[in-house]
């Protein structure tokens, strides 16, 4: 180790960052979190998984030459969106279950919180970066590939506007599960409850939504896949499609607040 002095940096062009309250450290933390996606292999591993899974299944359906054209389009779009809504939810929970809990366990959260970074920034950075990561790798890229697939393999072309709207609604579902997993991470000490509750919520919705009263199911994100499909195919809705959208968006906002509140009370 060798010597250093403050005197040597008195003329430094470096400018101190002034505290801004709840946003302190946000940009830096978002940059770091995005780096965890895009500067590691995570982005291409995720992309590979979702392309193989979602576009692979869509390819299998589109290759069924004996199926009537209209049915083929319906089946391909429906499978892509419904399967995407469910599997991406599970993928989100599995991938980021340790995003907060892992940092609490390893001590990196305490380290970051010893710097001038607000607790809200810590939580928001995780939400922003993981949302961007999943929306891009699990939804946007497979959706673009699906469009190309449809163009090449289906006898009729898709209504791209409607399909884009449907992907937007599926994005809300992805956002919801990102928020839910991060919020669980702020609430619990271990990965078990985070993963268990998160995956349980996705699976219960997919397997039991048909058995539950429609008004109850409408107040959940479980119908977002169906809503997206109905928009994409311009099929008549069996329920008010705005209700699941509004409820999910409101729940996601509420969960963000809960996550920040819980993390604010965290002691390291």
């Amino acid at each position: 180790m060798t010597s250093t002095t403050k005197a040597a940096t008195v003329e430094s062009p470096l400018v101190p960052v002034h505290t801004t309250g709840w946003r302190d450290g946000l940009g830096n933390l978002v940059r770091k979190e995005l780096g965890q996606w895009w500067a590691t292999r995570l982005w291409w591993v995720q992309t590979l998984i979702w392309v193989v899974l979602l576009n692979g299944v869509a390819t299998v359906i589109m290759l069924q030459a004996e199926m009537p054209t209209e049915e083929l389009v319906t089946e391909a779009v429906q499978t892509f969106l419904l399967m995407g809504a469910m599997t991406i939810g599970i993928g989100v929970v599995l991938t980021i279950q340790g995003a907060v809990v892992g940092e609490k366990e390893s001590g990196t959260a305490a380290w970051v919180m010893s710097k001038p970074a607000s607790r809200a920034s810590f939580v928001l950075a995780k939400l922003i970066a993981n949302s961007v990561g999943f929306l891009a790798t699990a939804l946007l890229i497979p959706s673009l590939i699906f469009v190309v697939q449809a163009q090449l393999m289906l006898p009729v072309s898709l209504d791209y506007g409607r399909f884009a709207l449907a992907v937007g609604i599926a994005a809300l579902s992805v956002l919801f599960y990102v928020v839910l997993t991060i919020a669980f991470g702020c609430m619990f000490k271990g990965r078990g409850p985070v993963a268990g509750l998160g995956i349980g919520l996705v699976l219960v919705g997919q397997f039991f939504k048909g058995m539950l009263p429609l008004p109850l199911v409408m107040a959940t994100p479980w119908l977002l896949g169906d809503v997206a499909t109905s928009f994409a195919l311009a099929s008549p809705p069996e329920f008010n499609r705005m209700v699941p959208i509004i409820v999910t968006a409101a729940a996601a906002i509420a969960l963000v607040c809960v996550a920040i509140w819980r993390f604010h009370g965290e002691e390291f």
Partner: protein
Amino acid sequence: MVDLHRPRGSAVQTKVVQNQSQPVAPAATVAESVIHTVGLTKTYGSVNALQGIDLTVPHNSIVGFLGPNGSGKTTAIKLLLGLSRPTAGKATLFGMDSVQDSLAIRSRVGYLAQDPRFYTHLTARETLAFTARFFYRGPAEAIRARIDETLELVGLEDKADRPTKGFSGGERQRLGIAQAQINHPDLLILDEPAAALDPVGRRDVLDVMERLRAYTTIFYSTHILDDVERVSDYVAILDHGRMVASSATADLLDGDSTTYELTIRGDEQAAVRALRSHPWVSDITTASQNGSPALTITVTDEQAAESELLRSVIATDDVVVTAFGRRHFNLEDVFLQLVKEHGE
């Protein structure tokens, strides 16, 4: 300073401030202090991790925070940093409240955790850049220069571009010290900075602390007593969540003016008789040191002892004095004695 009081009492106890009286530094000192705590308390359920500690740390000092494992040192540090909240009492850093003004405080502090952990996908250089961005912005070259300077400070230049995933405990510790001072903080809080280091690494860390003393205040916890003796201006000793002593290191270790140590060759009994002839000699204990008689003499009249004690022994036939001086404590004696007393 850490609550300087004049010693009173006997033996080891005379060397330190007993904090049960909750001493608070004088107002002028508090105003100039970097850290000031009053009755700082933390409980976890039924466990009293910290029981009303009072502490004042002045600018540009190095303060060693001593205590056995589980004594509450890390808890106290986390309270100072706002990583947890006090159950009672208050801590101020730079005159700001540790809870309300935590962000402003942290912008002036560098912190090294006891077992520093970093994002394993980042290299040492990226870790320092990430840390630096919390504190300042500016041209990339200037930031790079600051990082290079810091890497050089801790001897990690050759590992700068390796992911921290493969770092050893000692390398993580060095990186921890680097990130703690990348912002040239007004206050460095180091939790066991040398614990994971080999002797050479330990020496290097102490050297760095010595060099930084001119620019910053250093508050560090440790259980390596030699380190405290070497670099600390002040010492605070914590045990079972209580501050059992705090003092300037020099005061703590200074010779006791009422106890002398004498090593002789020759007739031990003749020396004892000569010493007992003085009415101000209140106690003599004898022991053997490397085969030679070693006497510990307690006196009631310091001035008389200063002028006559050695002379009277030298004048004794068949006695040769090989060593003489005021009793000098080492920190280990003080620490163990205090912890033992407190435990009782």
